[in-house]
């Protein structure tokens, strides 16, 4: 841009130069606005094009079949497009992933924002970043090549190890807390001896339960390593970084004053966090859960590679050891065959699935946006 001509008589611009500059400014602003609206246009186009290719599938009977039947035979004659089992598969692995990711993620976020010393935090943060950065196909490769054979051949033992891994820390914590409570109930509080006895008794009891559980788990046999459990675990780990970082942000945003106020009233750190900070950050934490859910439901490669891709309802419905099939995997897997017959019902039904995914993620996104916006408004930022 050329510097404007300065009139000899003063600092005022000539009328022409001023006009030129105003036009240039308007044009530049317009150009920038056009560039900025690319993402809006992209969202619009994504909706338009997915809907446009989904519409030819829309008819009352077809949609009813899509949502209520479990018979998925797109290449049969006549083809059948019952996607209930596939939708259920998606829901199943996503719920599984959320069950894995949310408790772990929130606990880790609390630890990260309030418990860990500064140095340790500097180590844990890159761990989360790396977990988030690893490509989904690498997770899928791990699930298929490393984890699935392990589950198939030593399924029982893997489950038993998981029982121990989860059970031991929880047992230790529970023994600690319960023995203390028991001692108080019996009026022997503060006395090391009786409390130790209670702790030992409780410990033996819990360890016994754990042994029984792990025995039962070890006796189990998993027919196929590529199943809903495998995928749910891996998806849970993939969703973990999202949950951790969003909820950590929310916990941080709750502010120092709240914490200090609570400490000043004599609350311990656990009480401060559980009764004050987590409720204050509950909006952000629920946004974190929603975002983790979105990450899991939209994931393609892991489920395509390691879920077994069987379009059937598991028997019984909560059986995580059965292979399942998800919406994303169906789109990825069937498009190769449907591509040759662009325009067929088989092609369009995949766009219907994409539309379902798109609507779910749009709804989740809106809700989490709204939650975050409401929090901001309340905090007056």
């Amino acid at each position, binding site marked *: 841009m050329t510097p404007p001509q300065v009139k000899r008589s003063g600092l005022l611009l000539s009328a022409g130069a001023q006009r030129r500059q105003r036009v240039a400014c308007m044009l530049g602003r317009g150009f*920038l606005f056009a560039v900025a609206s690319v993402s809006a246009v992209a969202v619009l186009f994504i909706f338009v094009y997915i809907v446009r290719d989904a519409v030819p599938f829309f008819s009352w009977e077809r949609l009813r079949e899509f949502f209520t039947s479990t018979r998925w035979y797109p290449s049969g004659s006549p083809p059948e497009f019952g996607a209930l089992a596939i939708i259920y598969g998606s829901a199943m692995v996503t719920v599984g992933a959320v069950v894995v990711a949310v408790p772990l993620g929130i606990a880790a976020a609390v630890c990260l924002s309030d418990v860990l010393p500064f140095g340790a935090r500097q180590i*844990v943060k890159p761990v989360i970043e790396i977990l988030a950065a690893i*490509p989904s196909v690498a997770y899928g*490769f791990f699930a298929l090549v490393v984890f699935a054979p392990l589950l198939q051949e030593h399924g029982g033992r893997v489950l038993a190890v998981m029982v121990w891994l989860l059970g031991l820390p929880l047992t230790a914590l529970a023994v600690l807390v319960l023995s203390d409570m028991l001692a108080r109930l019996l009026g022997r509080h*503060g006395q090391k001896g009786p409390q130790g006895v209670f702790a030992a008794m409780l410990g033996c009891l819990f360890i016994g339960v754990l042994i029984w559980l792990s025995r039962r788990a070890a006796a189990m046999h998993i027919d196929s390593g590529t199943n809903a459990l495998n995928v749910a675990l891996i998806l849970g780990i993939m969703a973990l970084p999202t949950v951790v970082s969003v909820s950590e942000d929310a916990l941080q945003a709750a502010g120092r004053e709240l914490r200090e106020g609570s400490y000043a009233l004599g609350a311990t750190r656990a009480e401060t966090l559980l009764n004050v900070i987590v409720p204050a950050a509950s909006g952000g934490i629920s946004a974190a859960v929603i975002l983790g859910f979105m990450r899991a439901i939209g994931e393609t*490669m892991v489920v395509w590679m390691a879920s077994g891709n069987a379009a059937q309802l598991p028997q019984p419905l909560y059986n995580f050891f059965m292979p399942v099939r998800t919406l994303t995997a169906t789109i990825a897997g069937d498009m190769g065959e449907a591509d040759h017959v662009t325009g067929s019902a088989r092609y369009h039904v995949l766009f219907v699935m994409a539309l379902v*995914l798109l609507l779910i993620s749009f709804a989740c996104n809106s809700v989490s946006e709204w939650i975050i916006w409401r929090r901001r408004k309340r905090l007056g930022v």
Partner: protein
Amino acid sequence: MQLHTRHVLDRAFTGLGYVATGVMAAALLVLLLPIFIKGAGAFVFRGTVEFRRFQFEHNGRGTRAALQRELALVSTARAPVYAMLDAAEQEIAAAPPARQRELKSALADLRDDMRVLLGPDPGQPAPVLLRGQYGQTRWDRARVKLHEVLFTETWDYSGPSGIGRKVYVPRSEEFEGLSVTSLFPYLEAHVTEMLRPHVTLYWRFLVDDSRDAHFFGGIMPEMLGTFYLTLGAILIAVPLGVLTAVYLTEYAREGMVVRFLRSCMSTLAGVPSIVFGLFGLAFFINTLQVSRSKSVLAGSLTLALLILPTVIRAAEEAIRAVPQAYREAALALGAGTWRTVYSVVLPAALPGILTGIVISMGRAAGETAPIIFTAAVSVGVPLKLWEVFSHPTPALSWNIYNLCTEHEAVDEIRHVQYGMVFVLVGLVLLLNLTAIVLRARIAKKLKA
């Protein structure tokens, strides 16, 4: 509640947090360890004489004299084996006719398995397929193949559950009474001399073409494909993203329009990656027809949309972090808004923007779902630069999927799969490390 109880509860709660963090770190370790250890096996392994023969005959690596010396040693070690096989043929011809057919087919099977292990029989015409022209190039695979020569696999259904159990029967049982049974102990004892494994560093795995569907060679086409796709996505997304961030931070006034734009961006960030792929197919290829079928260009455009929100967010944060005083100083010197932005604000925000770019590069390189329908093919040659507008390409992410699910011999090329995952994960980690270092330097500069 008593004070002591509350303290215990507090400690328990802290413990829970530590456990969760520990589980996370353990998950990362469990995930990365096998990939790194086995992935390194694509680069450093015990290569047999067949590997060196392949490298000499196809890439001209190594010297003819050394190879021939080695081949001479190997063929003297192998000669007794072939002599025994020929002798077995004559013995079978003399065997009672009732057993003859069975023995003949057993011998043919044995010869086939030997060919897989050691390469074609001497004096035979070379097979058409490249994988038939060489024996096992890696010692770890050769051990597996040796086991297949020594034992046959059968299923035992006699157990009470009726579920089959794998049992290995020594193959010499099939040839009971023939002199060829002595082949098996001889083979087991002398296989090292027949294949001569040495520890080999094969760094050219990165830059060699793949031969015969990844049975031999490296991963150059995939590397190049990933490079083109990532570069294309960055070239498209970065100008768009940075300009958008400039508009949002420096020009736009907060209001309905900006709020709408922002919610569009977060919607875009939340769109599942497979939907991006479908959109790329329906829009860039079927509607705009940027290319007649899949192409690097279409893939890059799709990936660019995918990483756009990340770039915008990073650039916006970096620009907002530039102190307001910089802008005021520039304005006071008589610079207009645009001049302030490009001569003061953007240079100051550059490291932060670079961090965002590097992270989104990692994202673009690793994504698979968006390129399935828009850019990726399973087999291909390295593309020339001008072919990116019309040709599809193999890419690391897609070929990892492809090789470990759809390849004809998934188990034979595990090392290639692991090598690819290793390279891809290593690449992404390296990019992220760069970002972490960049960020640390910015933080230091801001503190100073």
